[in-house]
């Protein structure tokens, strides 16, 4: 079974960077890492590949500055190869532009299954996986909390308001996974060393047959007009519990007429 996993490379959330005041987009000149949200998809893909006993896991990422650090992390976990789309023309791409590029890159493979995260940690539009599916003309299941494959179909437990739905979908298909679907492994030292020599295919926008003015700034159909700090909530009273802290809570609940 051949699986493609979308891996977004993002700034370390512990150091999220800032908006460029001129272009009003995220500054992206620091080193990027694999979005933790995508580590679940990578782990899921490795488990499905190993359960099938054959096939390859290919990572696909679109990132500026030829960044491969996050892809290396996924290769170190055990993925077989990676495709990186990196191009000046991609700066400023919105979700739809990103999906067009990723769909074209994925189209170069023969995937039975395309995995992505339900939403990225920094962009969290949550629309890219479904846009990829539509662009590729594939069925899709989003919000998977469990995935199995059986007779050419993927069986997904899909999160719902009330609980979950069991969904059956013929492959090839796109599935987006939630955090916690599996426990991502830590790369071993051997894995980290092996990752260095795994195939890393770098492609440009024109390699994908996409016109540069359809993506990036030129293609983004939206623009930020204003950036302002959100109103802050003021902190109230802080009390150290000396055994009677619960009384303060009861008193406040009384004042608010909750009890």
């Amino acid at each position, binding site marked *: 079974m051949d699986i493609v996993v979308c891996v977004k490379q993002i700034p370390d959330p512990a150091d999220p960077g800032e908006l460029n005041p001129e272009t009003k987009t995220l500054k992206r000149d620091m080193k990027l890492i694999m979005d933790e949200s995508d580590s679940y998809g990578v782990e899921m893909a490795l488990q499905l590949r190993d359960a099938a006993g054959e096939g390859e896991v290919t990572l696909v990422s679109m990132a500026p500055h030829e960044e491969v650090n996050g892809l290396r992390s996924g290769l170190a976990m055990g993925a077989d190869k990676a495709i990186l789309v990196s191009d000046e023309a991609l700066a400023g791409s919105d979700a739809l532009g990103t999906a067009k590029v990723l769909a074209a890159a994925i189209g170069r493979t023969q995937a039975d299954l395309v995995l992505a995260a339900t939403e990225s940690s920094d962009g969290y539009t949550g629309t890219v996986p479904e846009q990829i599916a539509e662009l590729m003309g594939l*069925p899709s299941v989003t919000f998977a909390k469990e995935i199995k494959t059986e007779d050419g179909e993927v069986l997904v437990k899909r999160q719902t308001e009330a609980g979950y739905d069991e969904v059956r*979908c013929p492959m090839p298909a796109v599935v987006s996974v939630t955090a916690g679907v599996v426990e991502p492994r830590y790369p071993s030292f051997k894995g980290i060393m092996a990752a260095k020599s795994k195939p890393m295919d770098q492609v440009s926008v024109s390699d994908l047959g996409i016109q540069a003015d359809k993506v990036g700034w030129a293609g983004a159909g939206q623009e930020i007009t204003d950036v*302002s700090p959100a109103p802050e909530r003021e*902190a109230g009273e802080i009390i150290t519990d000396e055994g009677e802290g619960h009384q303060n809570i*009861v008193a406040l609940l009384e004042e608010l007429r909750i009890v």
Partner: protein
Amino acid sequence: MGTIWVYAEASDGKVASITLEMLSRARELSDTVEAVVGGAGEPVAAELGAYGASTVHATGDLNGGLAGPAVASAMAEAITAGAAPDAILFGTTYDGRDVAGRLSVKLNAPVITNVVELQSEGGSLVGTEPVFGGTVNVRTRFSGTAVRLFLIRPKSFAAEESGGGPATVSTLAVPDLGVTGTARVVDCFAEESTGPKLDEAGVVVSGGRGLGEAEKFAMIEELAKLLGGAAGASRAIVDAGWVPYSHQVGQTGKVVKPDVYLACGISGATQHMVGMKGSKTIIAINKDAEAPIFGVADLGIVGDVHKVLPKLIEALQARS
């Protein structure tokens, strides 16, 4: 402003609160508000009408198909055939994102996501979205001429009835979906829940990793019950498998705005706070005086949940 479409969601004949919120805001921004539902129109026509929809375009039963491809194709077909909504509002929900994503490709139109405020500027809608965990707000407008698609965060607007009569039901045909429509729901499972729903409760008591172990979540449930509220959780303990995902509060969970939010053993990560910062009163218990949650708490108790919670439960039991 011309016509706004609202993607309407319902379960068991009851319209979702996010839908009512969007209808209420759409009414203030536009003269004509219409709903689009992936399912039967009749059961929801009265409620949708009461919140301002004049028409509900209904696909009829999807027969186990997912909303994403079906509703997006139906909308795209109607738009190609001449329907001309200026904007379409979707809730940031499981199906809302699917429909918006599919439709954006069909119309080659971008989606503005995570919107918490909508305004009309120069005859066009502009969205406001929080970024960096809610510390910064950005306003975004569309530059092209395609239909404006917005994904709206729950609890962004108040739901208020307009007093309108039932919406007129009109049929929205779903074209042949080909292979994109082949995913099928074969079974539905509901997690048991008692008491008020998390996103509708007046009081929410949430627990985090500071509880130490799964069994201690019983204290959170007990307290929620005593206060007539709902029990919530941080993602840390959802991922750890202590409680189901339906309890999760935050960016990737539920947005709650209760009268009182009680955070127990929760650090206050930005992704948690975007889901509860709108609560009227926030009470936090955490043993670390430096925990970020104290930055938004009206009352903060620096203390051990294993000491404070049992006493609090006892004190409340003694009163009831």
